[in-house]
């Protein structure tokens, strides 16, 4: 082989000015890089200036904000930051402890949006316990000299409910024997009473409706009168003066209809006024007659005494005045909520039998008996879900039961 390669021969075939000419590949790469920088830069500038700014959203907003998801300024304002003012246009809510935590006055310090993808659709309202225990974990405290708040740092360290710890009796004055009601054979019913016959959920499905006489008691505990007004009934819940007026009205009406002849003869007031005094006379004329007035007073007093001694006293504490004046009935005193600092959803717990949380109701005979759940009843299902070693549990974080904002109905119901 005669063909030889020397450094000189190799160098001599290279054009000395080759480096002055940009190779097409290098030029294309530069042009591509310039375009790759300019196009997105200009596009994003146009988008920021004229386009839909929701494209810059760092994450999906909560479903409750879906209607304003594409309108960033409805929350962020012109300066970009979220202010309490923006929140208050749609939401009402007062501070937990006014003046206690200035940092907490910013809604967004607890309620952070754009996290539905990470934390779920309830990320806005599902506030982490750390926000609560920042204050509550440290020490027991008293708010405004009224409400004592115990130190608590987690569900595991939650103290027993006050109503049990302080052995508070049921403040209600209604004489109710649960055992009797649950075992009594009631004529006309194929079964005994059950819890749900009296305790029904309200429209929200979360709380129990108050017991109403007309709905729950009247079938068995009628307010039917006897004596001169036998067969007549009076409405439940009348004030003493209204009750007297109602009884007077009933007695006078009965006398004007001439039904007074049926009054039993053994009671003094049952002696009917002479017929000519009542019949064929106007109501006002009859009422003005002293003889009729005497009869009415006797009849009303007799009926009041009967009601107070039998009908009302069957369930209520009745206080009669020594001078024979109007009897007064103690207020029922049934709390509208046993746990005012917490919220509870009965409907969500419908798979659980009443007796699993409300213990010993079937054996209860006294009004003062408490049948409220204890913390241990909650802890059977609720607990610390962060512990991977623990069995599957229902949530046990603070906001599962407690609301930060004042206990308005809307807040308590979590709406």
């Amino acid at each position, binding site marked *: *082989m*005669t*063909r030889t*390669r020397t450094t000189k021969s*190799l160098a001599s*075939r*290279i*054009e000395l000015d*080759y*480096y002055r*000419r940009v*190779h097409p*590949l290098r030029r*294309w*790469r530069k042009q*591509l*890089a*310039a*375009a*790759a*920088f*300019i*196009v*997105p*830069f200009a596009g*994003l*500038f146009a988008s*920021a200036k004229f386009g839909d*700014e*929701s*494209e*810059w*959203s*760092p*994450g*999906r907003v909560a479903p409750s904000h879906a209607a304003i998801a594409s309108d*960033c300024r409805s929350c*962020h304002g012109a300066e*970009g*930051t979220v202010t309490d003012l923006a929140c208050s246009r749609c939401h009402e809510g007062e501070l937990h402890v006014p003046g206690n935590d200035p940092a907490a006055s910013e809604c967004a310090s607890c309620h*952070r949006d*754009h*996290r539905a*993808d*990470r*934390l779920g659709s309830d990320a806005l309202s599902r506030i*982490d*316990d*750390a*926000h609560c225990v*920042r204050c509550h974990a440290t020490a027991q405290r008293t708010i405004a000299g009224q409400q004592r708040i115990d130190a608590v740092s987690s569900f595991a360290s939650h103290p027993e409910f006050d109503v049990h710890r302080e052995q508070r009796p049921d403040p209600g004055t209604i004489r109710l024997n649960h055992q009797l009601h649950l075992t009594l054979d009631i004529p006309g019913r194929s079964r005994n009473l059950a819890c749900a016959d009296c305790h029904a959920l309200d429209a929200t499905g979360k709380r129990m409706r108050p017991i109403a006489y007309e709905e729950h008691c009247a079938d068995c505990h009628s307010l039917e009168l006897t004596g001169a007004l036998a067969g007549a009934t009076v409405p439940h819940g009348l004030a003493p003066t209204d009750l007297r007026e109602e009884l007077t009205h009933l007695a006078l009406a009965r006398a004007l209809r001439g039904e007074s002849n049926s009054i039993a003869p053994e009671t003094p007031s049952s002696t009917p006024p002479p017929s000519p005094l009542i019949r064929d006379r106007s109501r006002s004329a009859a009422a003005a007659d002293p003889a009729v007035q005497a009869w009415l007073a006797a009849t009303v007093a007799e009926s009041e005494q009967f009601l107070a001694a039998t009908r009302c006293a069957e369930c209520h504490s009745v206080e009669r005045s020594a001078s024979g004046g109007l009897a007064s009935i103690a207020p029922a005193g049934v709390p509208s909520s046993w746990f005012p600092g917490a919220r509870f959803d009965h409907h969500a717990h419908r798979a659980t039998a009443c007796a699993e949380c409300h213990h010993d109701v079937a054996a209860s005979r006294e009004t003062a008996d408490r049948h409220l759940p204890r913390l241990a009843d909650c802890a059977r299902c609720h607990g610390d879900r962060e512990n991977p070693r623990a069995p599957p549990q229902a949530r046990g974080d603070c906001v599962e039961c407690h609301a930060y904002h004042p206990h308005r109905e809307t807040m308590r119901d979590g709406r």
Partner: protein
Amino acid sequence: MRVDRQQRPWLIGCSLALLLATACWWQARSNPLDLLTGGSAWGLCFGIAAAACMLIAIALTLRKKLSTWPLGKARHWMAGHVWLGVLTLPLVLFHGDFEFGGTLTRWLMALFFVSWASGVFGLALQHWLPRMMTEQIARETIYEQIDHVVDLLRAEARALVEKHCGPLDAPDGPRTGTAPLRDFYVAQVQPYLAAARPKKSPFDQRSTAPMQRAHLKRLVSAELHDAVDDLFDVCDERRQIEQQRRLHHWLHGWLFVHVPVSWAVVAMTFWHALRALHYT
């Protein structure tokens, strides 16, 4: 750039930085009061650190433009480009706590992944291909001069054949005894050298070329054997140069993805930071 012992300081430094960042990320994500997002305090720190790494990495371009300026050695800039570029990925992931946010940030993350992955791919090629080129291409030339050198090879081959066989377009044909050489040149060598991207030729296969050469030598007289060797040497150089072109495209082709995508990432990062800080 090769990742060798000279890179140990960078390796140690970046490893320590990664450990520190991981510890900070672990601490940040365990604070439920300030959920780790791009807009949280720690998230911003990670974002700023990642952006700084990006800027230093992209500054390599400026360093190349200002090659005469006293800005430090180019290999140090390249090492910084590589190591800080690698470190950017965990910082970016920590910045969003491994979440990719909304539409534009997802696009940004996707482009960043492409840029990062193409860079790592390119780094791997830089390790592998130069050695392969050294081993396989003894006749390497300057890439930009390949077409020019190929033209020279074409001319050299034609001159070689015409020297022994006479002009190719001579009306009375080749000289006596040189017809096999001339025919071989016209049928095999000329098309192979004339092709812009010669493929599927005997000269492309190192195993069959010696057989061709031996066969041709049997057909011509002994005084033409050197000419045959020279002709095959020209073809082998052409083969090596074509192989160099292919390897060069692999060695630098990834830059067609890495560089534009990186600039797009820089543009989007700028706007991402601007809008995110506005809404934070």
